[in-house]
């Protein structure tokens, strides 16, 4: 899968109109520099040779050189990864936690008003685009009520030398963007948990557990919920891939210095080497995330491992 992705990027890059050397060197590069690029990447050679050179470079960690930042692509990207992880991770955790809680509540109170309200709200949040939602949050909480900061992840002047103040500041900045991401994803988890929980609750083994005289609380958590969570693990893995668009947009709106916003900057500057690198690294991360999800799943569901 990973080689396929890399080759695909390579081919896509080749499809770009214009002289690839110019694309990679940047429009403001000198003629000599462009020639140098042509040499290094062997752009005059046949396609399969170029591919081999390209793959070789990737293996050594050479993702090319970003002419906008004047630094190696890999460095530029890796620098931004922690902030993106912080944002995406927090958003995902909030979404999963509250998604499960609301889903369980909706399942237990099936067909009551609470259930209907939760389901309706879920549907609305599922339909609203994230760039609209984020801006509504900004409108109310930043502009009208000045409760949260608008951009960046740290206020100017606050530095890591005072770790607690620094952490609090970052958290304060983290609130709105992560909530935006979370609200969009939450809907999926609420719906899924609700359905899964209802199915679980009406299963035979729940009736049998009741018949054995187990306390309802125990049945709920140890039996019903545990089984209901299985599909959620799978979905969480898939969501990791789907939320990338949301991350890009959120980081842009809140000027959050992560890989998402980097992508936009790269797009605006037509910095193809950087874009290429982002693309490959993101794909690889998604693949790794899926593998991890699979491993977690086999750990929880013995039927997969032992069959």
């Amino acid at each position, binding site marked *: *899968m990973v080689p*396929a*992705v890399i080759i*695909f990027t390579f081919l*896509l890059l080749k*499809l*770009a*109109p214009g002289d690839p050397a110019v694309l990679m060197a940047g429009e403001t590069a000198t003629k000599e520099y462009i020639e140098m690029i042509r040499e290094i990447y062997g752009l005059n050679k046949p396609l399969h040779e170029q591919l081999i050179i390209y793959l070789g470079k990737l293996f050594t960690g050479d993702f090319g050189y970003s002419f906008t930042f004047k630094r190696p692509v890999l460095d530029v990207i890796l620098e931004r990864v922690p902030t993106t992880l912080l944002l995406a991770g927090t958003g995902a955790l909030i979404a999963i936690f509250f998604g499960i809680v609301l889903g369980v509540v909706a399942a237990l109170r099936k067909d009551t008003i609470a259930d209907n309200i939760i389901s309706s709200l879920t*549907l*609305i949040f*599922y*339909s*609203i*685009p994230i*760039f*609209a939602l984020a*801006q*509504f949050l*900004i*409108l109310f909480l930043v*502009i009208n009520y000045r409760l949260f900061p608008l951009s960046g992840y740290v206020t100017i002047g606050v530095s890591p030398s005072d770790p607690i103040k620094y952490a609090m500041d970052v958290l304060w900045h983290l609130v709105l963007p992560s909530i935006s991401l979370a609200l969009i994803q939450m809907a999926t988890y609420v719906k899924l948990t609700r*359905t899964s929980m*209802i*199915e679980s609750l009406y299963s035979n083994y729940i009736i049998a557990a009741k018949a054995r005289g187990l306390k309802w609380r125990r049945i709920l958590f140890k039996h019903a919920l545990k089984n209901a969570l299985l599909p959620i693990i799978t979905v969480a893995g*898939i969501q990791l*891939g*789907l939320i*990338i*668009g949301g991350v*890009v*947009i959120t980081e*842009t*709106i809140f000027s959050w210095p992560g890989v998402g916003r980097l*992508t*936009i900057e790269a*797009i*605006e500057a*037509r910095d193809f080497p950087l*874009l290429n690198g*982002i*693309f490959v690294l*993101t*794909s690889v991360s*998604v*693949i790794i995330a*899926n593998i991890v999800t699979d491993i977690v799943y086999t750990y929880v569901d013995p039927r997969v491992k032992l069959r």
Partner: protein
Amino acid sequence: MLLFRRSRSLTISLILFSAIIFFGLAAGILTDKEPLRTGYAQGLTPPSPQFPMGTDQLGRDVFSWTLYGIRTALLVSLVSTSLTVIISIIVGLPAGYFGGKLDQVLMRVTDFFLSIPRFILIIFAVIIFGPTLTNIILILSVFSWPTIARIVRAEVLSIKEREYVQAAKVLGAGNFDIMFNEILPNVMPPVLVASALQMSDAILAEAGLSFLGLGDPNMASWGRILAIARQAIYVGGWWTLVFPSIFITVTVLSVNLLADGLNDIFNPKSVR
């Protein structure tokens, strides 16, 4: 009202969707202003009888933009989804029916598309090929068909073994006959549900692209006005955010409800 009892979602969806379509088609009658034309007013103006939804910083009429935006959204999503479904059927039907190499290739391809960050790739492709309406539609189709094709294939696999298919075989029906007359009609219900979801995805994707400045500059897209809203809301221009947001949310909502409703009809026994 019978429909309402059968499926609440479907009824609401159809009502909302018809309203949206009506507004979209009637855009020319409801407003005399061109959606992307600047200078109707001197910069940002709040809603008024002349501009029911106000204007943006360059004097563009938000009302007109919002209404014509319906056309963009529906055009892109309907066409790209239709293309997606057609490709999916063409690939998924034989893959599921005949199995073998074609099937394996299909599975690999869909795995691939599931692993890549779709949105970034779409952005990438739009940059490379240029942000025009046709390109956007084609790119969206290309990146959506694997998911639907997978559903088609899965359905084909389960339907293949059913009695009426075996019966048709025994009666001497040829493979293509069977595929199109027996299997395809029964594949459609879940495919239709998935397509509805795909359509709402497409609306959001197109809006997202426009928001990032990668939409067709000649089309009035909601994404683009919402990008403009970023600046506008600081100086009090809430109307640039609120009205297009309502319209896009309602449109996507109605399509999602359509998917729910179709699911209600096709799977009456599923968990509600």
